[in-house]
């Protein structure tokens, strides 16, 4: 850590946090000390199942339920952004400054941290009237692995929770956006990936305006 000089020999008269000489603080260490640093998939599946159950109490519509899952994920995204940037090596330790770096950061770093692999795709909306829409594609979202959505709720995608995390990351790095999850497994590619999910990231107009200015400069 070049920006945080370790205090040598003067720790008694200097107040504040002390940093080890290696520069690695406790925030660099994962909570889980095992080599693989993985959590139990079954425990997560049961926990998430209860979260969905909790979110579906007294709901008016499917959008309501997705909104609630989104809200549950949002603070995780905000906090995760700080943690992941802090763990980056010092020279790349800046927050993403344009849309492409931000989306790339989400696709690689955030996905790697949460699910142990990068997302399967990143695309810009092909519709020229919607330049503010980007798509992050996951062929088999971890949260949906054991979930079968009943027929009468067919528009529901429980990955709205992950969409909330992505939204939190975008909001935290000052790129306000609306993120929604959509199932696209039923189309022609559906045979291979029935759970294929697209996270549609729609940035706020001011973000696009700023991006325009930055592009010119």
């Amino acid at each position, binding site marked *: 850590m070049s920006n945080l000089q370790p205090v040598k020999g003067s720790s008694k008269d200097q107040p504040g946090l002390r940093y080890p000489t290696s520069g690695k603080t406790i925030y660099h260490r994962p909570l889980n000390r095992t080599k693989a640093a993985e959590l139990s998939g079954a425990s997560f*599946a*049961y926990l998430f199942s209860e979260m969905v*159950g909790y979110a*579906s109490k007294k709901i008016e519509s499917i959008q309501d339920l997705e909104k609630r899952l989104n809200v549950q994920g949002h603070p995780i995204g905000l906090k995760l952004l700080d943690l992941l940037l802090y763990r980056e090596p010092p020279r790349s330790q800046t927050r993403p400054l344009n849309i492409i770096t931000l989306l790339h950061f989400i696709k690689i770093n955030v996905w790697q941290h949460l699910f142990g692999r990068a997302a399967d795709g990143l695309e810009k909306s092909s519709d020229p009237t919607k330049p503010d829409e980007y798509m992050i594609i996951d062929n088999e979202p971890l949260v949906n692995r054991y979930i*079968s*959505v009943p*027929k009468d709720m067919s528009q529901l995608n429980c990955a709205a929770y992950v969409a909330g995390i992505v939204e939190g990351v975008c909001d935290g790095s000052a790129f306000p956006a609306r993120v929604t999850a959509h199932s696209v497994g039923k189309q022609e590619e559906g045979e291979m990936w029935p759970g294929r999910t697209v996270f549609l990231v729609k940035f706020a107009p001011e973000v696009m305006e700023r991006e325009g200015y930055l592009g010119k400069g």
Partner: protein
Amino acid sequence: MNLGVLALIVINKAGGLIYNRTFGDGLNQLNTNDYLVLAGTFHGVHAITARLNPLKGLMHAQQQQQAALTAGGVPIPSRPDPPSGLEVMETENFRLQCFNTLTGTKFLLFTDTMQTNVDITIRKIYDLYSDYVMKNPFYQLEMPIRCETFDRKLNSYIREINSSR
């Protein structure tokens, strides 16, 4: 001629039918009512067969006494394993294997008489059930199973078994 795994039935702990599916074509189909009757009847028969072995409890008590005598102390009471009831039924046309889970859900697998390793197959089906049914937030306990992912995983697993022979 159909070979391999022919049909699967899942019965809940109250004896109600919660899942039935046939594999392979050309099988005579039962109507829904007959399936319900079959599930209920089997549940009753299973309960009777679970109490048909009077020797098991007796032998257990004898063993306990013997152990107490050799140890020279007071016998430590222990509960015998609950009797398992009907496990396999074989006819000249098919073989029926029953797997009773600890919570009383029963898996019935109908195979042809030459099928091997049915207990492993039925274990794997139980695995799929505990993954894709029990971890699904939209499944209500003891109710009929309508889970798309379970259907899909089960189908591909059975197809794999049936085509490998």
